[in-house]
């Protein structure tokens, strides 16, 4: 415990050392609403992301069953493989929650480790998606093949791109936590990355259920 306390104190000192004495609090505090600016920004951004993915999902359903040729969803989807990647992404939401929890408790090296595990899960998920796309193209479904191909790749591709951006974000936060630039006092920066990460997970919850599972429930 004393080791942790010493570490935390050390990191807090680093935080102070980086403080230029003024103008720093404006970065994290909204004096009107009494919430950290960065968190408000992330939540607002995630609100707009709902509309973004909502439109992609709506487009997918708009064109579902309207392809005049090409492979059908049922002919390319593999529930086994997609289930595995879904569980991995779901697990990463838990590890992300732990990264935020440990950061808020002042256990920064633990938080860094949880962040790295989360990033690894995310990278694994992206790897599964790269394999899935490669496999589908091999079967004969490309972006140009049919309405299903176009809408499916654009929708899941944008989700995969979000996961990839999330992995980079988490690695950057992990590095800042490791170097002490994000001490426990500024755990809100870990929390913000976490909000984005959980959002990417809930988008997948929707896509997995409504695009993949419903296809097999019909």
């Amino acid at each position, binding site marked *: 415990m004393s080791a942790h306390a010493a570490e935390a104190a050390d990191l807090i000192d680093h935080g102070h050392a980086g403080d230029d004495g003024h103008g720093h609090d404006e970065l994290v505090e909204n004096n009107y609403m009494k919430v950290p600016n960065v968190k408000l920004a992330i*939540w607002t951004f995630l*609100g707009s992301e*709902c*509309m973004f993915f909502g439109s992609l999902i709506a487009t997918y359903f708009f064109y579902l069953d309207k*392809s005049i040729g*090409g*492979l059908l969803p049922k002919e390319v989807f593999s529930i086994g493989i997609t289930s595995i990647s879904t569980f991995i992404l779901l697990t990463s939401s838990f590890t992300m929650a732990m990264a935020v929890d440990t950061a808020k408790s002042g256990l920064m090296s633990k938080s860094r480790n949880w962040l790295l595990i989360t990033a690894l899960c995310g990278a694994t998920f992206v790897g599964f998606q790269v394999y899935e796309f490669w496999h589908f193209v091999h079967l004969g479904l490309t972006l140009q093949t049919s309405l299903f191909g176009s809408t499916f790749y654009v929708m899941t591709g944008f989700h995969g791109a979000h996961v990839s951006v999330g992995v980079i974000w988490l690695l950057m936060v992990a590095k800042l936590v490791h170097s002490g630039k994000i001490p426990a*006092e500024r755990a809100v920066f870990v929390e913000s990355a976490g909000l984005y990460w959980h959002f990417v997970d809930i988008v997948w919850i929707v896509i997995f259920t409504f695009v993949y599972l419903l296809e097999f429930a019909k």
Partner: protein
Amino acid sequence: MSGMNHDPSTYHSHKSVYVKTAAVLTAVTAAEIGLLFVPALKFAFVPLLVIMAVYKFAVVVGTFMHLKSDKNVFRVVFVAPVFMAIAMIYVVGLLAVPHFGALGDGYVRLANDKSHDERMGLGEYSPAAIAARDNKLPHLTKERYAKLFAATQDFAAGEKLWGANCASCHRADGGGQPGLGPNMTDDCYMHGGTVYDLVNTITNGVKGKAMIAFKSSLSEAEIDQVALYVRGMRGKNVAKGKKCEGDKVAAK
């Protein structure tokens, strides 16, 4: 530093809550997938899957993202767009997908949705309309086309038309694509392999298949040119072409 900064000494870990939440999420996801293997519940698949997905969504947002116990302003900026997105998906689905849940009867068909017309047997793609249009090219004969093919040296015009109209389904080199156009470089044809047959197929399309009619987008001369080019492909057997579909004809 102001009081806004987080104080780790007053923070109580939510670890046990997170572990329980993760277990619940995993169990619900397993139930979702497992559901597909219980045919007896098929009638309830859609509502059960929707309920479980909404539950998972709410648990992640409420517990992992703390929205349940966080400041009101976060709920406003996030939950409002969630409902806007749901409304958007609902309305677009209502417009477009005939079997979108229980809303099937309410959909509005788009005027220019030919593929849908085709499947529903409506409008210009109805079997009756196609039959009426399908003149069998009476002024043209197999013999005429056989002579024309024998005399043709230059396929450049046909090749250009192929790239613009046919390659997207039959592949640029004619090897065909799974689920789309057949291989045009083998010796197999589903609707006849003479130039005359090809002109007929290109002109009128094939009912109920991806092969659309080109009579409205290409001139008769252009259809002749592309048919001659396709006939010239026979027997090339390009690499990685689709397997033989239809009847085998004698090579060249």
